[in-house]
């Protein structure tokens, strides 16, 4: 095998392609390689803070799996709690003023005549919304007036009563670099092959279908789409639904019911949680991506059975996601498949963010690990992220899909997908697979992988705390303090970069973050501009909390004189 040592940060080999290996299976020139060759099997490199680990479990991981979740610095945690404490005190003060009518109350209250009835608006539950969220509300729900590609236009808003109401100034902010859309492969565009095909389909079929799949809304385009999705994933058959959220929440109840057990990851998406609760099965939660916790739960389930009767469970279903969008972590799929086979459970994999974004040809997290798609019982995904359309799919064996066609609520009651959307998915999927005769799809997948590695590497070098796996295009950057959430969003917009900031309740209370989504549509210049601005704002707001300084990658061959890459 040729050893290619001169890898710069942008020219890295793509996921799984042309991976260079030394004789003991370790990739040279990558992070933490010096520590690696001392450990062989089942090792988790633990630094003092347990911040990053590399799995080499006896060879089921064919490439280094590096993820890091650096611990919150103690001082930052204390200051964050102090900030929230001050905001809570002022929240109580403002509520008191509102209660005693010293100040005008902007949020919803009941009318005078209804004061003696059962209260409609639970006042205390909305404490957080009224007093914390409202103050920095201008970072969310920003109205976009162009296609959300690599750059977009925003309508400028201004508020004179501290974000309770907004007025539009009439000005449009042009060419804001988009670091927030789930546009991983850049298919959100209003010109090009996909858009033309979708427009043609609108002229042929119209836009509305006006019926459900069971009744008279089953177009030949839907059948074509389902065959194409099955071919793309490598499964026997698949079924497409009009809405990604509804795919999860309406199909899990069709698959499991009372007397079944659902083992779901701690940080699963709301659609999975809703579907699990609607099904009526028993739900047990295992720690995020923690295989020991999952194995313990599986063992307990098999040994003890159902809670009071100790009968065996009818079905055990493991619910995981491919990429968790708030953490940027990738599921430990080889471990889960090994566990599933050992304990005879079923696996439901939600590839909403990972389909099209991982793997050498964009087939998702199964291809990223080099596993067999038939090992995953139910492969679910959405078309919203990488394909630039809307909707979701479920793929699996033919029996499963035939069963879902008759028993799923979404298939029976929901209106089917709109024809231009179907055409957009078909065209973009053919482009990714290379069936339209060009290499555009493959180029985009590789561009996304390069952009991801480059962006993450640069941010870590600058000194920010970045969560997640090195290959995931979702990049969460920690902000921690509540005032910095609002300040970051506003300062970035002032400098023409649009970002998504997330706080409680989507994340734990002190771990608020800014979430960047890298796209194949971003050129290197755009990424460099964005990185310079993030560096500037990071210095202004003092966001560089990381205590691990990464040495910039070497451009000389790796040998014994190479020092540790992580300086602590």
């Amino acid at each position: 095998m040729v050893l290619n040592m001169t890898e710069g940060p942008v020219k890295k080999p793509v996921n799984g392609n042309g991976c260079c290996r030394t004789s003991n299976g370790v990739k040279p020139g990558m992070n933490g390689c010096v520590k690696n060759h001392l450990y062989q099997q089942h090792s988790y490199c633990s630094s003092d803070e347990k911040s990053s680990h590399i799995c080499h479990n006896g060879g089921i991981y064919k490439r280094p799996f590096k993820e890091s979740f650096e611990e919150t610095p103690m001082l930052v945690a204390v200051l964050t709690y102090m900030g929230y404490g001050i905001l809570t005190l002022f929240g109580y003060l403002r509520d008191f003023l509102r209660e005693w009518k010293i100040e005008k109350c902007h949020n919803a209250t009941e009318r005078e005549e209804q004061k003696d009835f059962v209260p409609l608006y639970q006042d205390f539950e909305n404490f957080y919304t009224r007093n914390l969220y409202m103050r920095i509300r201008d970072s969310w729900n920003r109205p976009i007036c162009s296609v959300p590609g690599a750059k977009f236009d925003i309508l400028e808003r201004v508020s004179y009563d501290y974000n309770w109401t907004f007025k539009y100034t009439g000005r449009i902010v042009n060419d804001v670099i988009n670091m927030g859309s789930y546009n991983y492969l850049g298919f959100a565009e209003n010109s090009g092959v996909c858009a033309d095909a979708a427009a043609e389909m609108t002229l042929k079929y119209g836009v509305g279908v006006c019926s459900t799949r069971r009744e008279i809304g089953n177009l030949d385009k839907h059948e074509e789409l389902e065959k194409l999705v099955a071919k793309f994933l490598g499964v026997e058959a698949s079924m497409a639904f009009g809405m990604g959220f509804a795919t999860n929440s309406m199909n899990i109840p069709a698959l499991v019911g009372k007397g079944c057990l659902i083992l779901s990851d701690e940080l699963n998406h709301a659609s999975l949680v809703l579907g699990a609760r609607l099904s009526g099965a028993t739900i047990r939660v295992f720690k995020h991506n923690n295989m020991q916790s999952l194995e313990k739960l599986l063992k307990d389930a098999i040994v003890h059975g159902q809670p009071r009767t100790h009968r065996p469970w009818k079905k055990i279903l493991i619910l995981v996601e491919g990429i968790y969008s708030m953490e940027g972590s990738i599921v430990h799929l080889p471990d889960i498949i090994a566990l599933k086979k050992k304990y005879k459970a079923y696996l439901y994999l939600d590839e909403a963010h990972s389909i099209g974004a991982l793997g050498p040809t964009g087939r998702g997290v199964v291809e990223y690990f080099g596993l067999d798609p038939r090992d995953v019982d139910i492969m679910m995904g959405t078309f919203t992220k990488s394909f630039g359309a809307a909707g979701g799919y479920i793929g699996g064996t033919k029996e499963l899909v035939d069963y879902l066609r008759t028993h799923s609520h979404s298939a029976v009651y929901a209106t089917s997908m709109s024809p231009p959307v179907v055409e957009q998915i078909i065209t973009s999927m053919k482009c990714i697979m290379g069936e339209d005769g060009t290499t555009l799809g493959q180029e985009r997948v590789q561009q996304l992988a390069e952009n991801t590695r480059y962006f993450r590497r640069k941010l870590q070098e600058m000194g920010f705390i970045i969560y997640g796996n090195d290959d995931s295009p979702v990049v969460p950057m920690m902000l921690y303090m509540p005032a910095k959430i609002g300040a970051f969003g506003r300062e970035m917009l002032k400098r023409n970069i649009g970002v998504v900031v997330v706080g409680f309740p989507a994340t734990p209370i002190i771990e608020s973050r800014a979430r960047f989504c890298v796209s194949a549509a971003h050129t290197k210049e755009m990424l460099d501009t964005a990185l310079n601005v993030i560096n500037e704002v990071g210095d202004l707001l003092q966001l560089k909390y990381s205590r691990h300084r990464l040495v910039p990658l070497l451009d000389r061959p790796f040998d014994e004189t190479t020092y540790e890459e992580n300086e602590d």
Partner: protein
Amino acid sequence: MGLRSAWKQMSWLYYQYLLITALYMLEPWERTVFNSLLISVAGMAVYTGYVFMPQHIMAILHY
């Protein structure tokens, strides 16, 4: 010129103070309330220290 850079530095430090204590998110009158409370408590602490420090030091030396 030295004065302007000192002013910029003070302004940046005040901005950091606003961010850390989350006063950045509060309205101007709330900031005034908090700042005056903080300054009055700090002032009282300094005054108490100034008044009682000689007595405390004498007590410690006496032991």
